[in-house]
């Protein structure tokens, strides 16, 4: 066996352009060269330096062994599957990429990865939820590597005011897989000379995490920004609470959210209307469902979302709240001694303006082409409104205040009748085809956004509803509706949707 022959230690770094993979490679080279090792590093930056994925590769070999052999070592320029000792991944999907490249093997490789995600353009540009489940990468890392050390290093870097590569370097030291002491690593950072103090802080946290790995909890969703919770005792509120409390356990959380949304959006009467609308669906679910209350839950969710449709009033309301000002300040990291100004990009078209007018008036303008064109001229350009200025704030504050007249607006009437029609459908289907009822309830997901996005979504929604009877006659309608919904979110031009609709109806 040749396994006791001296061999180089190989380290692959997978990173995205501009993420500091090069700095990390430089630190490792410097560390090795100052610790009696020969080091060779290579990379293939090329166009990858512009946000693409790239790989840096380092090999090190003891000079003492070269001396006793009287010959120089020959080091490789790229990783060979099965021959990589250490893989450092600056992000979780990159750890997955290392596995697909075959350079992580269960008998040899220690993989150290940050669990934060930098989403790919594919995940980001999806019309719905394109995010890939992080836990899958962690499971794969555990299965593929000899040892898998992972933690959210982006968070550590942020907390220590440093960079990710410093945390990774610390974790590499803490993992104890290189024949060097902690102080050797730290000296390399010092010799680098850039941002030494914060880097060493980040290094220390990375070191501790790797020494005593606790893994990382993958956060599926950020902390919800709580809508003003109805607190205190009041007959109307108590009554609402009692109504929610009377519902089956499985429904209470989501319905409570819905009620909260109605209060935030409109008023107590609106919340009661919400519950009134939901009640018959819940009863149907109790009779026809399997006890999971899927129909009730999804209807509660989408009814709340639909009833809190985003009209001009709502947007103005959300934009002018004190909590929102605070959130923006945090998000843009404005310090207290700085002055913060917030500018909104508003482009209300004639449609949105008419939507906010009393129904009769709005409809009249929309139908009179002359008036519409005349008014349209004033709305062809977007406006920038500074919410932190008095004029801008007062304008939006006034629009937000129009909510007390919301029920007479054109938009309200349109949405109200659409909601009723949709709920009628859900109710009508609940007894005969429970699964289809759930799918129909979930179709509301398509109706979202503003302007063109909203029009496209509504169009697809209507197309599915119109095809419903025909789909039912073909059988397996629930599956078809789900497929149609997914197809509607596949592309903006609606090509896939048309294709699938044709297919479903042809069967």
């Amino acid at each position, binding site marked *: 066996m040749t396994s006791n022959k001296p061999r180089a230690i190989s380290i692959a770094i997978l990173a995205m352009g501009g993420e500091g993979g090069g700095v990390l490679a430089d630190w490792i080279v410097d560390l090795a*060269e100052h610790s009696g090792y020969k080091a*060779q590093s290579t990379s*293939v*930056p*090329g*166009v*990858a330096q512009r946000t*693409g994925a790239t790989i840096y590769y380092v090999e090190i070999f003891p000079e003492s062994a070269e001396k006793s052999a009287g010959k120089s070592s*020959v*080091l*490789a*320029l*790229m*990783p*060979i*599957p099965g021959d990589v000792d250490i893989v450092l991944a600056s992000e979780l999907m990159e750890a997955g990429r290392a*596995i*697909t490249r075959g350079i*992580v093997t*269960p*008998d040899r490789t220690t993989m150290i990865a940050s669990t934060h995600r930098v*989403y790919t*353009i594919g995940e980001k*540009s999806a019309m*719905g*939820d394109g995010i*890939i489940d992080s836990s899958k990468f962690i499971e*794969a890392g555990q*299965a*593929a590597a000899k040892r898998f050390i992972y933690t959210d290093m982006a968070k550590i870097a942020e907390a220590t005011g440093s960079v990710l590569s410093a945390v990774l370097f610390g974790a590499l030291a803490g993992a104890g897989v290189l024949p060097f002491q902690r102080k050797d690593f730290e000296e390399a950072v010092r010799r680098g000379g850039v941002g030494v103090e914060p880097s060493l802080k980040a290094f220390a946290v990375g070191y501790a995490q790797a020494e005593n790995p606790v893994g990382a909890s993958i956060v*599926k*969703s950020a902390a*919800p*920004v709580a809508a*003003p919770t109805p607190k205190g005792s009041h007959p109307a509120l108590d009554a609402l609470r009692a109504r929610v409390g009377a519902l089956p356990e499985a429904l209470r959380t*989501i319905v409570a959210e819905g009620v909260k*949304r109605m209060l*935030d959006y409109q008023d*107590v009467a609106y919340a009661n209307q919400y519950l009134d609308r939901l009640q018959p669906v819940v009863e149907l679910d109790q009779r026809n469902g399997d006890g999971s209350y899927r129909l009730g839950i999804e209807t509660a969710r989408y009814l709340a979302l639909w009833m809190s449709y985003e009209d001009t009033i709502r*947007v103005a309301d959300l*934009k*002018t*709240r004190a909590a*929102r*000002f605070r959130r*923006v300040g945090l*998000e*843009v990291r*404005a310090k207290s001694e700085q002055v*913060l100004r917030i500018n*909104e*990009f508003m482009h209300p078209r004639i449609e949105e303006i008419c939507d906010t007018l009393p129904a009769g008036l709005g409809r009249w303008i929309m139908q009179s082409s002359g008036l519409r064109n005349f008014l349209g001229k004033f709305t062809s350009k977007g406006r920038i409104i500074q919410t932190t200025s*008095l004029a801008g*704030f007062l304008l939006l*504050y006034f629009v937000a*205040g129009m909510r007390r007249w919301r029920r007479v607006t054109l938009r309200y009437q349109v949405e109200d009748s659409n909601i009723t029609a949709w709920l009628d459908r859900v109710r009508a289907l609940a007894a005969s085809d429970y699964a289809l009822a759930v799918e129909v309830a979930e179709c509301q997901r398509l109706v*979202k956004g503003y302007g*063109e*996005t909203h029009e496209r979504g509504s169009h697809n929604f209507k197309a599915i509803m119109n095809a419903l009877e025909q789909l039912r006659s073909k059988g397996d309608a629930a599956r078809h509706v789900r497929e149609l919904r997914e197809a509607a979110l596949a592309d*903006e031009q609606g090509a896939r949707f048309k294709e699938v609709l044709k297919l479903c109806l042809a069967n």
Partner: protein
Amino acid sequence: MAERSFKKEVEKLRAGAGEEFHGEGILAVTKALLQSGVAYVAGYQGAPISHLMDVLSDAEPILRELGVHFESSASEATAAATLAASVNYPLRGAVTWKSTVGTNVASDALANLASGGVLGGALIIIGEDYGEGSSIMQERTHAFAMKSQVWLLDPRPNLTSIVDMVETGFELSEATNTPVMLELRIRACHVHGSFIAKDNKRAEFTLKDAQTHPVRDVSRIVLPPASFLHEQEKIKTRWPAAQKFIRDRKLNEFFGDEQDIGIVMQGGLYNMVTRAMELLGLSDVFGNSRLPLYVLNVTYPLVDEEFTRFCAGKRAILMIEEGQPDFIEQNVRAILHKADMQTKVHGKDVLPMAGEYTGQVLVSGLRKFVEQYTPQLLDDARPAPQPVKPEVLQQMQTLVQPRPPGFCTGCPERPIFSTIKLLDKELGRHHVSCDIGCHLFSILPPFNIGNTTMGYGLGAAGAAALNVEGEKRSIAVMGDGGFWHNGLTSGVSNSVFNKSDNVLLIVDNGYSAATGGQDLMSSEADNLIRSTHHPIEKAVRGVGVDAVKTVTHTYDVAQMRDTLRAALTTKEKGPKVIIAQSECMLNRQRREKPQVRKLLKDGVRVVRERFGVDADACTGDHSCIRLSGCPSLNISPNPDALRLDPVTKVDDSCVGCGLCGELAHAAVLCPSFYRAEIVSNPSTWDRLLDGVRNSVIGFLQQRRDKRLLTQAL
């Protein structure tokens, strides 16, 4: 000013004899050039040798001390023609470019140079852009070496070998009156290693000497009858001289124990072959091979006697030659056939004909070869690595998504392509002929714009035929880099002369951005060693285009859109050129950041702008991302308990370029975007105004928050 500064590293170039030099491959090459006493250097940037040009730029003071003349050539053709200085004079000169694309551009000059031959050593450093990380068509420079009789060096990829080969390359060139190419693969360009330095040398004969005492030799000019003479000379004199030099100076290397099978390889593959052999138990980490190795540090020409000697008494050899066609393997077969030797030649039968020779590919090829002849040699092979469970691997293969390169955060080219997308909806799709440069990222998601790319500066030329009477005009895109490289003549002049009716969009971001932000003729930056500030518009008008529009702020989507729409729909005939001008954001940030830091420290009022998205107003459709694709436009799990789709979130890396807001307006996207202005070191007036506003707004907000609850109650 290039993206990466080598100001610190170039100091290493002063290292004297005996000092150990640690650094990157390209830095070592520069040092080797100085050790060789070059009189002039030139080149054109492009990965993987962009950094070589950057090093040379940053090393200007050292070059000047040594009397070395350095040019940033207009193109590879210019660089190749620059070597003409070595035709009549004993001047050593070196040029560099990205290959094969650069070699293609240089080929006219290079072929002329190779025909007449050189007196002084002429070295061409070739960055062979092949395999992983490459951005071009997969071809070999080898073919060019063969057709023009230029010698091709392919040294083992360690700094000592590379540096030796640069120095010896000049000698080879002089001994054979032939230009020599030194091929460096991508990883070798970026390899960090060390070598023992020598003193730098001044050229004994200088450019000034040549200019003062010109020498003319008509037999060196490529015109009949000399051109016929040159061909004979190549075959009768230069070729044998080269083979003799290679043999005498032992440029090719022989390693390993004696066996009746052997391995021949290109020098550049030596390290990976050795590692593959180590894994198979055929060698060790020091390269102590159990099989005889013949390492071709010169891959063209081959030395027949060396081959026949190596193959004598061998049943078979394995020729490890990366890329296709298998020029060397064919040549080896011919050599052995002529010598009537029965040694079997393996190569592309056990190794793949096409594609990069990665470690894995080499392991498998070597194993197949040795198994056929001496399988017992494989007894010491390392046990195969424990494989990852197939289901895990398969799941990862489906889940891991590609990360195509794209426009940087705040890139001024992004709004240009967003505009084309907006106009697509309005006017229908147009044929778009692309060019080479950052703007070519438009062909990838989320833009998906562009039909072809025919080469650097050839965007307009690529649309030449698609120019007949019809409903839609073709659009051509060209960068400022490509424009000055050749686009002005191949594209703009061509469309004037041929009465083109197409639209040409010239993306003028002030730098050769894709290759690392080098300055150009039209750069706005002051450059101590180059002449800048030559506007593109002047050049375009100069060759006869009247319909020229310069948009000086590409982020103004409405203006960009109106300008492009007008060019696409105007009744006016003739070429229409739009110059879309905004500074490369990467360079701008690098320029401005230190200035801003200083202002902040000095207590000066500074306004920082960045964008944000109100998560409660965002419905998670991501139209904004599909229209823009800015890396700082991110997504985040929806904070809303009811909503499921992730919301758009603007990362702190946002530079406040303004495109998001422009798009929200132009595309009537959604009102979720806001632009925050953060005023540091606010003036008294700022504070006063802020105080008044805050108290009024705060009062109203409180009032309504209370009412919200009252209403709820």
